[in-house]
């Protein structure tokens, strides 16, 4: 078996899978077709529902991939063939010619600035912006390497020009590059190829052929500050600011005529986001959303769409679009539609139309499926092995991450990707760390004492001409060489090249340096490289300092050489003053107890436990009830597969009970949790032991959720046994079968009972619609002549096969839409109930009798979760579910390292997603278990105990629970008193420094950014300059 994995696709799915895989002990080959990783997420302006800047949160992950020694990044590569089987695949890969040598290109961009101005549309900007024939896909591309478009390049097509080769100081241009084929061996393969968005594929009635009709991805680029219009909301035809912007929902999705029968799942939400951002960017614009069902079913999603309307003044219409036609004089658009609230045909004039057009499988999915020998589903997405495990493809050893499997949003993609990584970890568990490399630095670290005189070396980079042309580098070298403690300063062409690393090491040795400074580009990309070089020369990496004189100096002052030179000198002098005070810092290794605690024995908890146990670690599974299974114990059949819930449950419980590595504690309760990542002490009360002590390295919270009982609402009470909740119906079906249905002719299902309200429970509970429709199918099958009526507000059937299921149910039941303002009313009659409801689609009042009423209520958090949250020191959100570290990119983590989250404890979700999250949480947790230890950062806070007054302000502001007040005993002569002092847990501290700025007496400070170090930089800039002159 091989300890390496091929990941196909470099979007967020591929990135997350790759990063998690390396931490679990595998080598990754990440193949990306385009010249950079980043995928669709890099193209987005913001992300819902927090309006996070998309690239800001993605870019650090991209950089991490770029410099991870165990990820071999193969951008501009393609997969040609595979052979072999799970554990042992041989893959043939094509390296396409970039005509630029990756090992030499510094990404400076001199080539593109001189390349003749023949331009073609830039794909990254959805063809709205332009690029030249030598280009980088986008400024933050990883790797930051240019590529030549061979169809546009004059040298390659006509043999003339060649200017890029002349201007490239790094000698990186190579017009002779040819395609190269080679083979790699891997144990598993991950397909993470993402999606395309329809544009011209749409039928003409959507109007995409007109210039001022754009699809939503094009609109993301328009909104983006680094997009083609620099974030100004302009329309393509005349670059004027549009006043009326129409957002068209379901523009081709849920539409069999467009051959997209499924719901694209994310459009309702990104449309609300795009409308909000539009209103923020241009005050005079008006946003109109032409909607169908409003599908906003994630955490804070429904509330977000309400905010778009209430706070931002976005207008929503419930409509059916017939066609969009351009007014050829003004290039405005006329939308013809049926207003579903009045039933009338109306028109609307917009200056710009944004289509939420279908998100479809990647164009080359068929080809890739053929190469890999895996199946596609009826929609063209990669087919999962079973509904319950969406991460496995139809062939063993091949896995699916993200949108390639079907529509999903970013957090679901990220959770699923972590799940894929951990499933691979169980498949290849014997090969962990067999193919990875850990960089071992052989040079012993030189001791640097605070009393040693600083001997500072400075290297100033020309970056070709990128710095040298705008900053007088030799003059700066001369000035810096005169500064006290600067032992040696010199300049060079490219500080990042490998020969420069050798030169740095030589300098450190030759001049016996104990501090080193490089003044070149940005530390965000290059600091780790130079730090490593310093370490190789025996210098502690915290004795290195970097100065940014390119991105933040020469590139932004290109017409002011004198001022840029002065600025570069100032910045370097400031760094020199800081360098004098730099101290070597230690990175501690902390041992991790190789076992896990899983709280909650439902399907999420059982899945997580099995996954971790299958990786060979001990698991303690704690369940408060007398049996495993959680909410599944009350279900009858499972959606959408008609499998008996009990069969599915028994199968899983058997696996858990038979696993040697899992210890199950039923009827047990957590009493206390102490410790931190790697070293938790858990106190349990179990059936036979009131105080059982466990030691674990990591904790997974899988406590589930419960169904709300709508006491007093819609006549729900013990007196009305024929008004029941969905879960009560399922329990009845399990217990009594179909006999009791004999006397029942008409059943009415009411959706959104107690959910999506203005007050109280404001959220959409995600799964209730599918539960209701599942039960309609079951009832209809039991008794085909039953009359079924569904009273609904919006149907949330957003997954790929759900829409078809809903479409079939429309044959089984009559669907009547009601609104929150006009709730249905129920009156009790002799043997049945009388319902009165206003059908908002036709604005007509309906009255009818019904024999049975099923109330569809939301899932709410389990009881006493605040108690558990307090013990774990993790937060709950406003609705009482657990709050993850980051709603987009860390859906399974808590901000506190070492504790993870999955299933309905985080948010109501179905079995498929619970399983996917549980595997993901298991993977996140077992990264630490696999490594056996964690390395703490040297960049953490430290407390000066003599100054600390024990006020606890630092503890209050720390977002990671890394600072706490501890009682310590102080003895003065014969008196001993106990006083409180602040203490920093190095395993948890992230080094943000908020505690330091909060401390009223300056007793706590971040290492490497301490008061003196920042203070001397300020002095150096403002006071030393005049001295020098």
């Amino acid at each position, binding site marked *: 078996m091989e300890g390496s994995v091929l990941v196909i696709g470099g979007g967020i799915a591929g990135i997350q899978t790759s990063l998690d895989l390396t931490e679990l002990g595998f080598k990754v080959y990440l193949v990306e077709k385009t010249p950079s990783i980043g995928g669709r997420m890099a193209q987005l302006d913001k992300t819902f529902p927090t309006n996070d800047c998309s690239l800001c949160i993605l870019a650090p992950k991209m950089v991490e991939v770029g410099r991870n020694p165990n990820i071999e990044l193969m951008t501009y590569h393609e997969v040609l063939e595979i052979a072999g089987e799970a554990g042992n695949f041989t893959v043939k890969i094509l390296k396409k010619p970039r005509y630029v040598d990756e090992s030499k290109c510094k990404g400076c961009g001199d080539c593109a600035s001189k390349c003749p101005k023949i331009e073609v549309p830039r794909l990254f900007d959805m063809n709205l912006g332009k690029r030249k024939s030598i280009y980088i896909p986008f400024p933050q591309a990883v790797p930051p390497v240019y590529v030549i478009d061979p169809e546009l390049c004059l040298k390659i097509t006509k043999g003339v020009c060649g200017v890029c080769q002349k201007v490239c100081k790094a000698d990186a241009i190579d017009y002779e590059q040819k395609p190269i084929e080679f083979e790699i061996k891997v144990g598993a393969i991950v397909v993470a190829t993402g999606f395309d968005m329809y544009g011209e594929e749409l039928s003409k009635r959507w109007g995409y052929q007109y210039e001022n009709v754009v699809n939503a991805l094009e609109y993301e680029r328009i909104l983006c500050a680094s997009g083609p219009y620099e974030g100004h909301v302009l329309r393509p035809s005349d670059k004027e600011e549009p006043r009326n912007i129409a957002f068209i929902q379901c523009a081709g999705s849920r539409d069999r005529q467009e051959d997209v029968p499924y719901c694209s799942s994310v459009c309702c939400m990104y449309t609300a986001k795009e409308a909000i951002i539009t209103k923020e960017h241009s005050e005079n614009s008006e946003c109109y959303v032409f909607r169908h069902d409003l599908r906003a079913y994630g955490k804070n999603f429904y509330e977000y769409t309400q905010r778009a309307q209430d706070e931002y003044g976005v207008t929503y219409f419930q409509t059916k679009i017939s066609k969009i036609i351009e007014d050829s004089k003004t290039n405005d658009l006329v939308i013809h539609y049926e207003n579903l609230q009045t039933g009338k045909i109306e028109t609307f004039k917009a200056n710009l139309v944004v289509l939420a057009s279908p998100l479809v499988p990647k164009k080359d999915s068929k080809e890739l499926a053929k190469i890999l020998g895996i199946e596609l589903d009826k929609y063209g997405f990669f087919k999962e092995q079973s509904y319950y495990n969406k991460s496995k493809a139809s062939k063993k050893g091949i896995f699916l991450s993200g949108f390639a499997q079907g529509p999903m949003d970013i957090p679901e993609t990220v959770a699923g990707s972590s799940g894929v990584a951990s499933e691979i970890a169980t498949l290849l568990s014997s090969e962990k760390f067999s193919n990875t490399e850990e960089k071992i630095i052989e040079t012993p670290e030189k001791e640097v004492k605070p009393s040693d005189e600083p001997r500072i070396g400075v290297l100033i980079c020309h970056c070709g001409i990128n710095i040298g042309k705008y900053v007088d580098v030799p003059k700066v070298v001369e000035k810096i060489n005169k500064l006290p403690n600067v032992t040696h300063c010199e300049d060079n062409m490219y500080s990042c090249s490998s020969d420069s690393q050798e030169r740095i090491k030589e300098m450190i040795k030759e001049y016996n340096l104990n501090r080193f400074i490089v003044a070149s580009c940005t530390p965000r990309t290059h600091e780790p490289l130079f730090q490593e070089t310093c370490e190789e020369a025996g210098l502690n990496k915290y004795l290195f300092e970097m100065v940014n004189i390119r991105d933040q100096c020469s590139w*932004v002052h290109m017409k002011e050489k004198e001022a840029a030179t002065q600025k570069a000198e100032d910045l370097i002098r400031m760094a020199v003053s800081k360098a004098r005070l730099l101290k070597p810092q230690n990175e501690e290794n902390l041992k991790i107890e190789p076992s896990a605690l899983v709280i909650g024995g439902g399907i999420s908890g059982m899945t997580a436990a099995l996954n971790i146990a299958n990786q060979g670690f001990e698991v303690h599974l704690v369940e408060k009830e007398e049996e495993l299974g959680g909410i599944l114990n009350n279900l009858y059949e499972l959606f959408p597969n008609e499998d008996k819930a009990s069969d599915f449950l028994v199968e899983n419980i058997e696996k858990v009970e038979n696993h040697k590595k899992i210890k199950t504690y039923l009827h047990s309760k957590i009493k206390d949790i102490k410790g931190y990542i790697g070293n938790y002490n858990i106190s349990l009360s179990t059936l036979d032991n009131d105080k059982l002590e466990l030691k674990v390295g990591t904790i997974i919270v899988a406590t589930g959720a419960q169904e709300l009982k709508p006491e007093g609402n819609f006549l729900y009470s013990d007196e009305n046994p024929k008004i029941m909740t969905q879960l009560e119906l399922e329990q009845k079906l399990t217990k009594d079968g179909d006999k009791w249905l004999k006397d029942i002719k008409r059943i009415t299902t009411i959706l959104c009972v107690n959910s999506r309200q203005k007050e109280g429970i404001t959220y959409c509970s995600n799964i209730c619609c599918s539960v209701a429709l599942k039960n309609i199918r079951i009832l209809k099958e039991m008794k085909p002549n039953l009359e079924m009526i569904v009273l609904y507000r919006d149907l949330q059937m957003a997954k790929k096969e759900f829409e078809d299921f809903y479409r079939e149910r429309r044959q089984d039941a009559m669907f009547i839409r009601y609104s929150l303002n006009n709730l249905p009313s129920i009156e009790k009659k002799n043997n049945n109930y009388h319902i009165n409801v206003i059908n908002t689609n036709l604005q007509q009042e309906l009255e009818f009798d019904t024999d049975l009423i099923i109330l569809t209520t939301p899932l709410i958090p389990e009881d006493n979760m605040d108690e558990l949250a307090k013990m774990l020191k993790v937060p709950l959100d406003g609705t009482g579910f657990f709050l993850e570290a980051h709603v987009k990119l860390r859906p399974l983590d808590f901000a506190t390292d070492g504790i993870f989250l999955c299933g309905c404890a985080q948010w109501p979700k179905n079995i498929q997603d619970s399983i996917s999250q549980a595997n993901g949480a298991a993977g996140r947790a077992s990264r630490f278990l696999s490594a056996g230890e964690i390395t703490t950062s040297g960049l953490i806070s430290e407390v000066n105990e003599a100054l600390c007054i024990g006020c606890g302000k630092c503890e209050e502001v720390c977002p*990671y629970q890394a600072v706490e007040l501890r009682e310590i005993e102080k003895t003065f002569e014969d008196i001993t008193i106990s006083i409180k002092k602040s203490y920093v847990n190095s395993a948890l501290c992230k080094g943000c420094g908020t505690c330091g700025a909060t401390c009223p007496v300056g007793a706590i400070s971040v290492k490497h950014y301490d008061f003196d170090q920042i203070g001397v930089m300020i002095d150096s800039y403002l006071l030393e300059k005049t001295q020098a002159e």
Partner: protein
Amino acid sequence: MSKSKSKEIIKEFEPELLVFCCNWCSYAGADLAGVSRFQYPPNIRIIRVMCSGRVDPSFVLKALKDGADGVLISGCHIGDCHYISGNEYTRDRFDRLHSIIIQQLGIDPKRVRLEWVSASEGKRFAEVITEFTNEIKELGPLKLQ
């Protein structure tokens, strides 16, 4: 010689401005301004901190005392903080700094500014710096009483 000296005398006031940028958003936004070659006045010097939450009010006071004509603190937009909530403390602290200390010292509040700049707002970073520099130029050199 005398010519260049007289030139110096009529030379426009060039303020000395200090900028604190958080590593994750604003420093990246400043980098993007560079990558995109958006030009702005060369009057600022950036000090990188991991989080805007690290910026102690004493740093701002020290800079003003040392002769800076203005100080800008820049971090992630509220909600975007890499450290969850650091920038919220920055905001609160900044409000206090503004309302109490600056007014007590009689310093024009325009000289100390807080701006949220994201990693994709290179253009905005350049605009903020341009605007800030021009504003301080108009105010003239800071003279502490």
